[in-house]
């Protein structure tokens, strides 16, 4: 049911973990709704120098998180904040319809992190 790209990111997720003293953190979901996702950003000169994720969720959620981190890394905040969940799904060669809305939240977490970072400055 998942594309090869999804299975690749799911089985070998990129950028897993937390960043101590992260410059920005974004979190979406809650355990009682299934998928929860936390993003940690290291930011330098308005550019994402490093990014890591922690996800409690299904295959789609894990793969989306992993893909998002790859897409965001190295981008400026202005570029990164424009990444949409749809783009993440497309980069994964699509997700099953049922999974599109409930598990594809990584871009939301990233936006939250960036907005919080920008607001705090």
């Amino acid at each position, binding site marked *: 049911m998942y594309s090869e790209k999804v299975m690749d990111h799911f089985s070998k997720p990129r950028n897993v973990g937390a960043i101590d003293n992260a410059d920005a953190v974004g979190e979406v979901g*809650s355990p009682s709704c*299934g998928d929860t996702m936390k993003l940690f950003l290291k930011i330098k000169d308005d550019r994402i120098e490093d990014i890591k994720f922690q996800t409690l969720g299904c295959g789609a959620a894990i793969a989306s998180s992993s893909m998002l981190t790859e897409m965001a890394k190295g981008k400026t905040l202005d570029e990164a904040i424009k990444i949409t969940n749809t783009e993440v799904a497309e980069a994964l060669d699509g997700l099953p319809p049922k999974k599109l809305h409930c598990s594809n939240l990584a871009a939301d977490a990233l936006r939250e992190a960036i907005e919080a970072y920008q607001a705090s400055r």
Partner: protein
Amino acid sequence: MRKIYFDHAATTPVDAGAAELVMQYMTGDFGNPSSMHGFGQAVRNALEEARKQVVAAIGAASVGEIAFCSGGTEANNMAILGAARANKQKGNHIITTAVEHHSVLSTCKYLAKEGFEVTILPVDHYGLVNVEDVARVITNQTILISIMHANNEVGAVMPIAEIGQMLKNLNRKIIFHTDAIQSIGKLPVNVDQLNVDLLTISGHKIYGPTGTGAMYLRRGTWWQPIMYGGGQERRRRPGTENAPAIIGLGKALEIAVANRVAYVKRITKLRDELVDKVLSRIPHVRLNGHPTKRLPGHASFCVEYIEGEAMMLYLDMQGIAVSSGSACTSGTPEPSHVLLAMGIPKELAYGSVRVTLGKYNTREEIDYFVEALTEIVERMRLMSPVAGSNCTPGACVSCSRAENK
């Protein structure tokens, strides 16, 4: 890669002897059992043998009480829609439980649209329904009660014989149906001991062919069909009988019942080992269902801080087939209605995994599985934003993405 099948509650491989019969009647010995020529009558005879095998397996009084159909879901629909509609002048109240298979629960809910009142009984935290609860909700409008013999998701074995006895003592006719799809071949199933009027089974859960099911209908029970056409199955189920597969079902059932005791002993022992090892090796894991009133070979766990589908897929990558929730509900973002009905919090229910053992499983496979699961759970917890945090399952903040899924 090594392949281990631990999902026998979802489906089983067809027994070699049964599969050969299917092959034989699909090709060389084909024929329509309604045809009166030799081709047809040979098939008819074999089909009626299968009916006798069902009669023997469940202790029915006669072959006239058995109608074959296309599977467990159809059998449950036939039992419930057929009994409810045929008796609606007598009353409009139906009782079932919150942990039934969808083919029972959705059918009962649909009947509410046809004007029936449906009471859905709760279960305790083992997944068991209480006999007194059943007795308490019966009204003078009650015409039908449908309660499964054993639950597919957590293996809980319901007190069917006790409920049947209670109903018998009432001295009025309430039709009692039990879905024995998971229990047959694993528990003793006898329609008189259970005191049921309707009982349903499915081929593919007992090493028989998919696409076969049977409904037992006690003689004298008012009932009407749900499909219309030819007069097959004594006017209970129209359509050319799926003879090759039904003949295979008869054989599979015969084998299952004959070998039941030894089979149960074997898979109970293996299951107990598996449960012990999982619970002792992996922290924060709970066994779902009752410690003893459960199906042999059946284990269901909730693994804290991780999500079940992902766990299942990681196991699959190592060649191990288990299920998260049940096969029928997986793919939906909602956690199992059974686990929720047992009072298990959503965030725990998301982390459920079901292991159901079968004929060909070995102790060595159990060890391989426990190894793999231990490693996967560890890895997943490292990835989890919740594990080790101060968010105790069951005490989390409410969901920000709410119920719009």
